[in-house]
């Protein structure tokens, strides 16, 4: 395993009762590089979200090893796994914002969890302003559009300055314009801020923004290629 910052080695995961057990991942090994946006794609049921759950320390594999921030997840305590999760930025298809909290507080919740609220207030505000939500700090999720909600979720994911950002279908609920904004933001996180960004999506438009594309089928990696023409394709795509 070349890089243990974020990687899985020989992992297998099965779900369901013994007689009707379904294998979601089968002996998968892959590592992710800082500064790259990796797109994980494939048909439904191919194991994309399961892989993301493993990388996010939200699931334990039946076999194999998961490395996050240099630690082998199965070897650390439950409390340490909880701490590791605090160092990962998560972005979800359903946004997962707290319905009673205004946008700024939704971002600050990450600081509440980490126990450093007082130091993060200005940073949370700055993130929302940078993401174009400077005039919507006090609005609750019900008062925001889908794209705005996802940008709040991105700000929340970035508050703790995580080296790893995991995104599950982050544009599936958004229109084209909002989706494109999110794609650009996540790509810039990788390119300009050297973060490890893993995006799971069915959406082919992500291929133009990804540095690397991994294809999963039936729980196995069937294709893993770097997009050497990414920059060129991207500029052509953007101008189209």
């Amino acid at each position, binding site marked *: 395993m070349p890089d243990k910052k974020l990687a899985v080695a020989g992992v297998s995961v099965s779900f369901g009762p013994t007689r009707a057990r379904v294998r979601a991942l089968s002996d998968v090994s892959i590592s992710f590089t800082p500064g790259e946006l990796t797109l994980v794609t494939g048909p439904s049921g191919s194991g994309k*979200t399961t892989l*993301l759950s493993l990388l996010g320390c*939200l699931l334990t594999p039946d076999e194999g090893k998961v490395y996050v921030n240099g630690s082998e997840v199965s070897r650390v305590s439950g409390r340490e796994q909880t701490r*590791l999760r605090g160092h990962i930025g998560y972005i979800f298809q359903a946004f*997962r914002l*707290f*319905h009673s909290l205004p946008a700024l507080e939704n971002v600050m919740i990450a600081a509440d969890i980490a126990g450093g609220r007082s130091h993060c207030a200005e940073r949370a505000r700055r993130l929302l302003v940078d993401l174009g939500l400077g005039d919507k700090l006090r609005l609750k999720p019900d008062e925001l559009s889908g794209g705005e909600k996802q940008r709040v979720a991105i700000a929340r994911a970035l508050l703790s300055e995580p080296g790893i950002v995991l995104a599950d279908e982050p544009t599936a609920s958004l229109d084209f314009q909002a989706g494109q904004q999110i794609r650009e933001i996540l790509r810039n996180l990788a390119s300009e801020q050297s973060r490890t960004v893993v995006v799971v999506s069915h959406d082919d438009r992500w291929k133009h923004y990804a540095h690397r594309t991994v294809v999963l089928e039936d729980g196995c990696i069937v294709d893993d290629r770097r997009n050497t023409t990414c920059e060129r394709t991207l500029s052509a795509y953007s101008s189209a």
Partner: protein
Amino acid sequence: MRLAFHNIGHERIRVLVTVLGITCATMLMLVQGSILLGFLGAASKIIDTTDADIWIAGRGAPCFEFPVSLERRFAELAHSVPGVGETSRILTRIVPFRKPDGDQQLVTLIGADRGVGKRFPMPVVSLNASAIEPEGVLIDESSRRILNASGKLPLPVELNERRANVIGETSGFSSFLGTPYVFTSYQDGARYSGLGPEETMFILVRMQARAKIEEVVQGLKDRFPSADVWTREEFSHKAQIYWTSQTGAGGAILTAALLGFFIGLAVVSQAVYATTMENIEEFATLKALGASNWFVMRVIVAQAVACGIAGCLLGILISAPVIQQVKSVIPWLVTPPWLPVAMLPLALTICTLASIISVRAALAVEPARVFRA
């Protein structure tokens, strides 16, 4: 904790249900607690009002209201026991009271010697506090209406078909038996109740200075093996136990208070659980974002406790006029200042217990579910 307080502000209807549940539980517990404390106080009120150190009663008397007669000479014989200072007698019997309008009502007649205590109601002559008014009786102000004794004093009445005069009123001596207390001197009491000249009902002993109560009690027990001898505190406690546990009255009141506790628990549990399950995805998100179990637990418990404090304060506020109303029907009801204060830990206990199921559900949620749309 901001999430907890924002949730409270956001889910107003459900929070209102929770707060009202606690309010009702607090009211029920406070009113029933006041009734129970009042009942305990009323059950031993006569005993506690005396200055006696020791009570001698006929064997088997469970409380003041159900006496067993004693030989009158025991009052003199008691002086032979070392440490005994003064003795006095007290009697009680339920007798008919003929009202000024001719109507009749049963009353609990209490006749006592002057020596039973300075706080004990005694029908003294108004110009000479050391002289007892012959045929004079006192009634409690709470029974003025039932005895139809609101006219000008002295008011001629009949006790057990003998002439008596209501010459004054006491306060704080409302009976919990439904038969109003009527106080008179021991001699008149014996006459009204038809007590034999060689009989009495209770002998009260005041000890000499520096006498040890255990030794005097033991001396009296040895001297009167056919009688029961208690310290005043023991007899008071015995009477309270009798009325609360053996008659079932206290049990009924206590059950109602417990019912208040459990109704509150059920209402709050249901409301807190429904809120938690409705927001279960948010708890999964918290866990996925790295929140510890302690953090998740604090969010749920803080919501419940905030509702508990609000509901409890509201319950105490509403209970004050309610208790005043109940007091007009149950005059012996007592609400000591510490009782409303004690409602707060009870309400918080309800809320904390009510949160347990919700906390378990929130902690059991799989954080990986956040990736499902």
